[in-house]
């Protein structure tokens, strides 16, 4: 069973992603900010991370940098209400960039693609 770490400061988003992804057969762990995500990473060892950009404390971009300092293979999907960082982030560090949307079809297909699932 593939493991996904969902990092988002919004409780409702964390809840929605967790419900949806578990239903699709993933093991889901959540973190409310960058610090918590970095704490949980070594023990949980996720196969994929979804990372919100705007968060109190350590934000998504700083978290992304930190993670990439230690390892480069875990796919990271940046999820944001903004569209403006799309070009930058996809070119240098993350594997995908998704503008948050109520319709999770795009998110789910990106996850499957990155994890090599059908």
């Amino acid at each position: 069973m593939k493991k996904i770490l969902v990092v988002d400061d919004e409780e409702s988003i964390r809840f929605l992603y967790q419900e949806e992804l578990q239903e699709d057969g993933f093991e889901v762990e959540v973190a409310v900010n960058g610090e918590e995500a970095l704490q949980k990473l070594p023990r949980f060892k996720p196969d994929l991370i979804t990372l919100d950009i705007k968060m109190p404390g350590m934000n998504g971009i700083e978290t992304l940098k930190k993670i990439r300092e230690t390892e480069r293979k875990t796919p990271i999907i940046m999820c944001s209400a903004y569209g403006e960082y799309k070009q930058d982030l996809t070119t240098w560090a993350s594997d995908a960039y998704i503008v948050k949307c109520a319709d999770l079809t795009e998110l789910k297909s990106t996850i499957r693609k990155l994890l090599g699932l059908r």
Partner: protein
Amino acid sequence: MSGDPDAYELLKSIIDLSTSSIPIKAKLEQMLQTISEAFGSDQCLLLRREKIVENGFLSRLALERKPFWVDEESSYSGERIHPREKEFLRPTFVCIPLYDTTTFLGILYIGFSKKRKLAPQEIDLLLLIAKEMGEAIRNAHLLQKVEQTSSELAALHEMGKAATSTLKLEELLESIVKAGLKILKAKGGVLRIEDRRTKELKVQWSLGSYHQNPLDEKIAKRVLFTRTPFLLNHFSQDNPILSILCAPLLSKGGVLGTLAFYDKEADPSKFDESDFQLLLTMANQMACAIENALTHYETSQLAEANERRVRQLIILWELNKALLTTVNFERIVQMTLTAITIGAGLGFNRAMLFIVNERTRSLEGTMAVGPDNAEEAGKIWTTLSQRRESLTDLVTQLHLSFDSNSTLNSIVKGIQIPLEQEQCILSRTVLEGRPFNIQFPQAEEERLQTRCERGCHLGSEVGCYVGEHLGDPRPYSFATVPLWGKGKVIGVILVDNLYNQNPITEEDLQVLGMFSSQAGLAIENAMLYRNLEEVHQTLKEAQTFLVHREKMAALGELSSTIAHEIRNPLVSIGGFARRLYRSIPEEAPEKRYTQTIMIEVSRLEKILSDLLNYTRYDALVFKELNLPDVLEESLSMVSEKFEDGAIELIKEFAQDLPKAMGDPQQLKQVFFSLFSNSLQAIKGKGRLSLRVHPISKNGSSLIRVEVEDTGSGIDPENLHNIFNPFYSTKESGLGLGLPLVYKIITSHRGQIEVDNHPGEGVTFIITLPATQEREGK
């Protein structure tokens, strides 16, 4: 003696002679003859003073005033007789001294060769006769005096008449010289007047050739300088006689000149003291009249000059007043040229204005006023002469009927002369800053050469295109004046009298110069005002743009914050609604409720992305692109609207279009928005036209795209707001479509214009800069 004379007969004869009108000399001779015959004497003489030996016997008789006689019974043995008198005196004689009260007139002497007796009656008779002779002489003297006085008086009267008959200087001087000639009986005369300004003594009137004699001028100058009259009787071998009378013309103001006369018409031809006195009287009398006439002459000259000046000033004032009525450049220029050409103004036939373009260093034909041909000129002048308005009104109204399509105006507007073209009179007028008045140019350099490369000058082109057709240009007269702004020449005015061929005088040019300096300032002001207006307009646009951008920036900041805050809740609302939807069985009514939540959330999300699209600052990705391709892509996004055939699509894409530089995604968005709006505006049947053409503006290459629809158009009330965000008139939508179009086009350094016809449709015109390279080259 033949016997006792008949006393009665003798006296009668003597009195008859005395009262007769024969000249005195003959009268006396006849009297002596009569006496001689009556007494039978050998000698009968009237001895004048000069015939009497001084201190002789007879002179003593004259002094004593007593008659004396010698006859048979008496002798003069006791008397002292001069030997010359002894030869002369007869044996018997009678001497009677004649007196006019105190003046000695002479001695009547009657001598007899033989001694004879003298009866007392005879002595008495002779005394009576002597008395009568004395009377006759006295009368003759009196008559002579009266005649002389009256002739002098008549002469002076004539002079006086001459002096008062006219105030015209020429006539007065002529009549003075003529009257003087008559009075003095001179052969010639010269009148000189000293010029008050130059102090030069000039001959004003002369008769005869005496003024050519160098002596004459010397004398005149001396007389003028010394203010003393002069009389010269010059005798020499060469000139038989030269007699000159010269007197200064003295008045209260000083010396005015000299009056001289020459050679008396008498023998000997010299003037005497009385002529001299007469001349002085004349000169004194005439000086006053001459001074008056001189003053009158100078005053009328001044008055005439003043009147002309005042007339010119009034015209200038009226014209300047007209210039003050506006600051509009076109109108000022029209009024200036109208004022120059109107008959009541400066009255030239045609006027042309050239303005200096500092940037290109050239003179540009700006405007011309004037009839195109002689018939038109005649028609205009007749009409104008019937109008009775003031000059100001005339000028301010006339320009309204100005015909900007006249041949002359279009020729002049096409003229451009580089200032470096120094052989052209127009350039020289600017460079030298002075007027030129060219009458029938003979030399090449006096011609107007406005277009050297074509080798034709204004003279043959504008001045006389009729002549050019005949291959023989008429001589063309014209004048130019520089148009002065503040401290520099801003243009040139060219005038001519092509139709009435009136010569252009220096005075015309002077007045034109005065008017031009006023007009120059007015035109410069209008130009400055025009520039100011342009700058003001640019500033206003820049300000509007800045305000708009400021608004957008604020909006962008605000909306991105809000969007972020709203987006997350929307995601969870929509996300859980979808979860619910999936868990609710098909037939349950809740299925529809949750579906409604999902749809509405989608709509909200769409609005949010529109808003973020509009407000965010995306870096543009410029590419060389083919605009028709972009248009086709945008069209494909709305293709379903054309499916039912109600709306006709017309495409007009020019061949050989240059490529454009732009962000294809954003431009696709632009045209998609425009098409969507248009198609939404067309109710039922209609037409959407797309036109793409290359154009050129200010030397740069552009592409013009027109999107025209037959929809309802834009309500004029909303027109100025269509590019403002959130100003939607549609029931749905945020009103960010056109603002985004505007934003994208301006960030492409393009322009967007709206040609709106409410109720008929609207055309959006977009111009985008093209790349310099053309397709296929």
